[in-house]
Every structure is written in structure tokens, then in C-alpha cells.
């Protein structure tokens, strides 16, 4: 659906980064920020325009945790599984979310609403355990708070 707008958008990214050596990862960040993932046709264009082998782009995308080849869900929930959060009960949070959403880590619910992941520390360890919901870091999250969090996400989406 976004295909039509992709061409001008990525040419702007390309213009910004092409002359700077080794900026593939920066360009991929911009692309993923825009589309939520790196669509294959965008990779193909990027390869052409930045003069980088597609194999290099795929090597990089699949190496780094951050980049995705599949579209994300509407709501992205990452449970921090860094050491501090792990000790303070993150595994139980993750399990609760898995049960509630019926997905495994790295999966999106069939309706595309929720994507569940774990992340290894967002640097907010002092307030463990932490969940990042749609980019917002939530501190000291208890298992009991999960229901409310999901409900809030669902409502938000009803409103718009």
C-alpha cells in the first residue's frame, strides 16, 4: 500500500547518506523508522541507489536485532530481559504477555495488533522490570499491570 510513496522517501534518505562512507546502517534506521520494517522492494532500491550489493544489505539486516524484514504489529511490546529486569521478574511478564496474546517472542498476533519481543536492557535497570510499549518506557511493571496495558493499547486503537 505504501509502495507509491516509497520512491521519493527513500531517495531523500539516499541523498542524505550516499556520500558518507559506511552509512548503510544509518540509512536502514531511517527506513525502518519510516515503515516499521525494511520491505524487500525498498532494499532492492536501496541497493541500486546506494550502490551496495543486496547481499550486503541482507547480511546486515539479518545480523542486527533491530532490523526487521516483516511488518511489525500495530502495538509493539518489548519486555526487557536484561539482567536487572530478569532478576526482578521480567520472565513472568514475558510469560503473561505470551499467554494473553497467544504469541511467542518475535511474533505478531494474527490480527496484526500486537507484536511481542524481548530486548536486552534499555538502560533503565534501576527501575526494573521494564516494558517498552510503542516506544514508551514503562518502569517497575508488575504482572498485574499487564491487563491494563493491553486494554489501554486496544482502546487507543478504537479511538482512532
Amino acid at each position: 500500500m505504501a509502495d507509491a510513496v516509497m520512491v521519493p522517501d527513500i531517495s531523500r534518505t539516499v541523498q542524505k547518506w550516499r556520500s558518507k562512507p559506511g552509512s548503510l546502517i544509518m540509512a536502514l534506521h531511517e527506513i525502518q523508522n519510516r515503515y516499521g520494517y525494511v520491505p524487500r522492494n525498498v532494499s532492492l532500491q536501496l541497493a541500486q541507489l546506494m550502490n551496495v550489493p543486496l547481499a550486503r544489505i541482507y547480511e546486515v539486516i539479518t545480523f542486527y536485532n533491530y532490523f526487521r524484514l516483516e511488518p511489525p504489529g500495530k502495538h509493539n511490546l518489548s519486555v526487557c530481559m536484561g539482567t536487572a529486569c530478569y532478576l526482578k521478574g521480567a520472565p513472568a511478564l514475558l510469560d503473561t504477555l505470551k499467554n494473553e496474546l497467544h504469541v511467542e517472542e518475535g511474533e505478531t498476533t494474527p490480527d496484526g495488533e500486537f507484536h511481542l519481543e524481548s530486548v536486552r536492557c534499555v538502560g533503565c535497570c534501576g527501575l526494573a522490570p521494564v516494558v517498552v510499549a510503542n516506544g514508551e518506557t514503562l518502569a517497575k511493571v508488575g504482572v498485574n499491570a499487564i491487563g491494563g496495558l493491553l486494554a489501554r493499547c486496544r482502546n487507543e486503537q478504537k479511538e482512532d
Partner: protein
Amino acid sequence: MAKMTFEELDRVREEQRERTAKTSWIRIGTSTCGVAAGAEAVVRAVSDEVRRRDLPVEVQRVGCLGLCYAEPLMEVNVAGAPRTLYGEVGVETALRIVEEHVVNGRPVAGLAMPGVESLGVPDVPSNGTKQVRIVLRNCGMLDPTKIEDAIGRDAYQGLKRALSELGPEGVIAEMKASGLRGRGGAGYPTWLKWKFLREAPGTEKYMICNADEGDPGAYMDRGVLEGDPHAVIEGMLIACFATGCSTGYFYIRAEYPLAIDRIEGALRQARRMGLLGKNIMGTDFCCDLEVRLGAGAFVCGEETALMHSIEGRRGTPRPRPPFPAQHGLWGKPTNINNVETFANIGPIMARGGAWFGGYGTETSRGTKVFAVTGKVRHSGLVEIPMGTTLREVVVDICGGVAGNHRIKAVQTGGPSGGVIPAPLLDTPISYETLQALGSIMGSGGMIVMDETDSMIDIALFYTGFCVEESCGKCAPCRLGGKQMHLLLEKIRSGKASWSDIGTMRRLCTTMQKASLCGLGQTAPNPVLSTLRYFEDEYRAVIVGAPA
């Protein structure tokens, strides 16, 4: 704005100092943790209130104070009342504090943080008497988005002395006198790395700030990047000056969006002020710094992997030699230092290496920042002189473990480190002592565990981390880590026999000896150290273990 010169820098500093002395302020910590705890709502409420009532007080958004357990934090300083730090401030309490403390001049005793004293740098609040704040000198003390604030607190004075007085050789001599060793983990003398780079042939050289901070459970570097970006920029500039680099890169992990923002903003300001770019402060030193992002790979903290990543490639390490100082970024001589290492440089230049070397132990000079987390009462960022004992940090400064539990162990060095059992907590912290205990200093993660924590679980956690983060390039780590993890799962499930421990040790040796980079070489440490100090936990789940 006048052209930046040495005199202009001092003029801005004086102007800013005077302004600060006259200003009443409310500071609210808005680093990642503060925001996560709800600081933004507090800032909004307080600002509105101040505006509504037209109070003669400035609301400042500051960086991390280090008292993470009590976020959101708000500090109030108004004429006629003692400066007071409040913790766990919600919108309602914040408004109450404005009412009572700001308007009526009466600090709210019940809400003030207990045990906060001023130490080290005189106006730094801290939750203990053992801290000395060099790296964190400005964190929580200034608005990190305002370069004038930083200059008012001596930012770029070190650079000024380097440029005006010391010269490159003088800088390196001062570094040598300071005895500063790399804070990224390995503890290599910083001056020596700079000397190698300086002596490397060629004119195109690069300086890199390693802000990948991959150790899960550690956030010292984030604290500095978010709270005092100019400290790191100044350090980078001095390093570039001393080694002959005109380009430097910040390699920041993408998981730190706020830190990225702060550094980018600070770079823009520094550039605008003439502290970055061509002819810095009117000298012929030209240098520019850029930001490059990580993308979720712990191994990119390793130097050669990091350089591959900046080059836009997979972050796989390569063998050394050749070392970065000979063959680094794009094949050019390069030096990499950690964020905290750089944050130390300004003060060392401004106040002298001997001053810095006065802190710490014979072989480990200066201070070290730790992120103390886990089952500890007062988790947060702590900066102590080297030689302070683990117990002083965990118990005296951070209040020991929460609840009715006892400390079981402290883990340092993250996935490359090991556990240190409670009876050994009186060990003074230094590179050598921690290594002797089977752990490492690492970058500063310090995770406190109580007796409810299973050591096999901890080992499993860290090996799981290494399995996920192994770059997959070399067989010993790619496969050894996975097998180690599977074997630990077998042990935990009670299906292992004692001979599996032998296999485990063989695996550990293989990984330590034959892995290509530090990740694989140190990945067995959590297993070996738990085996060393908590073998009974393993025995308990292995039937038929010899007595």
C-alpha cells in the same frame, strides 16, 4: 554570538556562573529512567504551576542524579530555604512541594530524600558518604540541552588548557600522570593507546567513542551521555587533538534514543559555538564529530566489530593484530575509548593528572562508576574511588538488599564477568582484585543477588545472552555457547550426571582458548565462577554427584 576564543569561553563561564548564583531553580531529572517513572508529567505540572503563579523560579530539566530507585527526582533551590532533593515525586506531591517549598519557603520534610549529603564536588547530592564524582560531576546539575550550562560548570576548560598550554605531547604526558585506564572493561592505559595512535604513520586517523554499552543491567554510559554530553565531547576533542585526528565518531546503541538526541543536540551547539569544526577556539586545531548508531548487537562493543559496523557491515570481529592503531576504520589508524574514559579527560586536563591519580589505588587510579541494580534497596549510579570495597558500595551506599533477605552474591562485568559471593565483599575494587576473584571490573554493571536467586539460573541467563549475541563467526563460540546453554538446561532440569560437569569444563576451556574475540573467550566466566563458589547448587541437582 562572539567568535569562540579562550577569553570568550571564560567570559561565557563567568556570565553563566553569575546567572546561576542568582537564580532560584527547580530541577527535575528527565533521563530515560526519570521519564519512565513519570517525570514528564511532573515537569509539565510544575511548569504550568510556576507560569500560572508567575513564580520567580526556573524549571530545569536535568540529567540523571544517580538515585534511580527514587525516580522521579526533583530538587529545589530557592533563596531563603535549604536546597532539598525530593524522591518519588508524583504530580500531586510536586504541586505540594511548589506550594510549600517554593512559595512558602518551607521544605517538605516528609518528602525529602533521607541520607542525601553533599560530597566530592560540593553541590552534588549523593546517597552516601563514599562517593567522589568526577565522571558524574555534572549529571543532574545542569540542563544537558544547554551548552552554556555546561560551560558554566567548567566544560571545555580542559580543552582550553590542552590547546593553549599543553600541546599534544603535553596532553599525553598528563594522561600518563593520571594513570587513567580504559573504563570499557579491559583497563588498558589510555595514554599508551593515544601514544600509539599519535605515532602511527599517516594523516588520516579516526577517534571513536564506544557508546555501545551492551552489558545488560548497566547504564553508566547512558547516564553520562544523557546527563552531560559535553563532558564526552570535550574528552573526544582532547583525544583527537593529542593524537592528530580530525574526525571522530560516536557509536551509540540504538536502544538509547534519548542519549542519541542529547549527543546530536550537543554537537550542533558546540559546532555553532566554534568548539567543533574548523579552527577550534581560534587555534589551528580542526575537528568534527559524527554520530553512528548501533542496531542491536552486543558484540559491536568489541573494537573490530564496532568498526565493521560503522563501515556498514556485519558486526563481526576480526583477528588482532593488526590492531586498530595500525589498521582501523577503513584501514586507517584508529583509537577507541569508552564513554566514561572520555568523560574523565576534561577534569584531568583542567586539574592535572596528578590530581586524578590521587584517587584510587596504586594500579587502578581515579574513580569508577557502577550501575548497582538487582535486589538492592537503592539501585542507581554510584561513583567511588577505586579501592572502595564491594560492601561499601552495595551496603553502605546502596542500602543492601531489600526485604528480609540476605545478600548472596554480587555480579560484576556482565556476561564477561562472574559472581562474587557475599563473604568476599570486603574486597577493594580494582582491576586486579576482581580478576583474581574470577570476575572482572567490566564496564561497571554491578548486579546484587539475594539468597532467593539460583546461581544456575544466573549462569543460564548469561549463557543465553551469549548465545543470542554471539556473532556466529567462529566455531568455538557459535557452537560452544549453544552447547554450554543446552548443558546448563540439562543440569537445571535434573537430568545431568556428574560427568556432564566434566564436559562443561572442557567446553569452557575450549571457548576461552579458541574463541576469536572477547565475547566467546569470556562467555564461560559466569559458569566457571558459579561453579567455583556455588558448586553445591550444582551438586544439589545432579544425582550421583560425588561427595
